[in-house]
Every structure is written in C-alpha cells, then in structure tokens.
C-alpha cells in the first residue's frame, strides 16, 4: 500500500459511518458524573442564594481538601471502583531476573487483567516504579509495593480475583483494601 494511497472506497465509507455510531450508556455513569460534579459544586439540584453558595463552596473545598489528606489523590481511581489490590513484595518475593523478565511479567499481569475484563470485571492497574520518597513518619514495615489494581465488585469478588493474581506465583502478597466512599 502506497503511503499516499487512499483507502478502498467501501472501507473509507464504513469508517466515516462509524462517527455517527453511539455507544450505549453504562448503567450508573450518569449518576457518577453528576455526583462528581456536585462534589465540586459545579451543578446544583435547586437554585440557592449567593450567600448560601459561598458557604456551600467553602464547605465543599474543606471536605475536598480532607479527602486529599486521607490519601485518595494518591491513586488515579474513579469513584466506580470498590477495592484496591496492593501487590506487596516482601522478603519472599522473587524479583525479575532482568529487564526482559520484568517486561514479560508486566505482559503476564496485563493478560490476567485482560482475561478478567473479558469476563465483565471492571479493573485497572498501575505498576509502581523504584525509589519511594517518604514524607512524615513511615510505618517501618519492610514490605515494598510493586503495583496496584482497582476493581469493582463485592468482597467475595475481590477475594476471588486476588487469589488468581500472577503476583502470588512470584512469592508476593496481595492485600485487599476497600475504597472508602466519602
């Protein structure tokens, strides 16, 4: 195919037609968006006076700041997740042999998440880099964190998913924590 060659006409039209397609809206997304906006005082369910608005906005800012201090801003989470899986790397954890092994493991974790998603599980994950910076008084625990997954579901689902995490095969631990709803 020449770099300047146009697409076959039927494919060109099929792609253009896709722009009019619309994705069915997931249940709950609208309420989550509205809830998120209301928390930032961007929408109001009723008209209120300007004095009440200033009080409300100030209160919202205080609660928002409190939410940050609790640590939710540390995770790129959406309000739609229910549990985090903390991938701990304690003394029994077998670290990757080299960079290639590390990449292979990242692929393995991704494939595991892909499989869960194909089963309808809402899941996202992050790999943590090296070199933690500490502010304040650390707990003193020797365990390092290698990554985080966030999942949507109940406690039984979280346990079931955690039990299949590839991290366990390498001697790591998976700590399940609920995400507090504020």
């Amino acid at each position: 195919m020449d770099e300047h060659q146009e697409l076959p006409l039927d494919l060109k039209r099929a792609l253009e037609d896709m722009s009019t397609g619309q994705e069915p809206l997931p249940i709950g997304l609208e309420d989550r968006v509205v809830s998120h906006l209301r928390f930032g005082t961007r929408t109001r369910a009723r008209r209120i006076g300007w004095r009440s608005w200033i009080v409300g906005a100030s209160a919202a800012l205080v609660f928002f700041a409190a939410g940050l201090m609790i640590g939710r801003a540390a995770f790129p989470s959406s309000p739609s997740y229910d549990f985090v899986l903390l991938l701990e790397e304690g003394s029994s954890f077998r670290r990757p042999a080299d960079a290639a092994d590390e990449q292979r493991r990242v692929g393995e974790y991704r494939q595991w998440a892909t499989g869960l998603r194909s089963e309808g599980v809402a899941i996202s994950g992050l790999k943590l880099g090296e070199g933690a910076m500490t502010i304040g008084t650390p707990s003193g625990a020797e365990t390092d964190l290698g990554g985080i997954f966030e999942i949507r579901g109940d406690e039984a689902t979280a346990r079931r998913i955690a039990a299949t995490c590839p991290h366990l095969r390498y001697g790591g631990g998976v700590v399940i924590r609920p995400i507090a709803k504020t």
Partner: protein
Amino acid sequence: MESEQQLVREFVATRDEQVFRALYRAHTPRMLSLAMRLTGGNQSSAEDVVQEAWSRACQLLAQFRGESRLSTWLCGIVVNCYREQRRGPVCLAPEAAEEGSSPPANLELEDLVRRLPARCREVLVLHDIEGYRHYEIAEALGIAEGTSKHHLFRARRLLVSWLESAPRRIGNG
C-alpha cells in the same frame, strides 16, 4: 424541545442538575464512542475520560460561543482528556495488537480498529472516523504532523491487510 444553545445558556445561568442531565444524555453516547475507540475498547478508561471531559466542559461552557457544534466541541475535550490520561504512568491494562499479529477472523470493523496499536488507532480514529486534519491531530496528541501521517499510513495498511485476509468483515458480510 429546547435548542442546544438554549440548554447551554440555561445551564451556564442556573447550573441546574436537570438541565445538565439533558445535555449529558444528548451528547455522552457520542463522547463515549469516541473515548472507547481512542482507548481501544477499555471501558473503565473510557468512562474516566468521559467523566473528566464533562468536569472540564462544565468549567468551560460559559466560553462556548456556538461557532462549532456542541458535540464537536465536547469531542475535542474528550480528545484532550484522553491525551492527558495516556501520558500517565505504566498501566497494567489490555494491550492492542502488535503489527504482524492477525486478529480472529470473526471481528467486526469496530473491533479491528480497537485492536490497532495505540498510536495508529488514535490517528485513524481522529482522521478517518472523526474527520480531524493532520495539523489538528498533531496539536491534539502532541506529535509532529509527519508522525501523524506515518501512523495513519500504518493503521490503514494494517486494516487493509486484516480485511484482505477476511473480506466479509465490513458491509453486510
């Protein structure tokens, strides 16, 4: 039924939740479709992009002058939010197909687009589906215009090769 501009003016003036919900229902299906294509079908990432896009749109709606369609304006915000999400840390999320791999034979065109390598998919979605020009894509994605053209060429070549191996994937086949 209120016109689009009337709804925007009313929301900017009142910040009324029901007015927002009317705007949301009118435009989110298209926004979510775009976000799903850009993220390669990653539902949770797409929802996060849409949520952030609406958050940003609510801040900026007072500046919307109606020079373009509201849906076009909102989709531009979706692209910006997606770009910022893409710049984030390493995600342990499903990967798109790499060049040289053949997807299963029974996939529709929409699924094939989602399986393109990320950069190729982004440019193809924005250029061939959404109608952006290369200089707009370059600005939206923070890449050079030549890079945008190169990714589009790769994306088209992959799609054509996949379709040639299973000619009935588009149309009524």
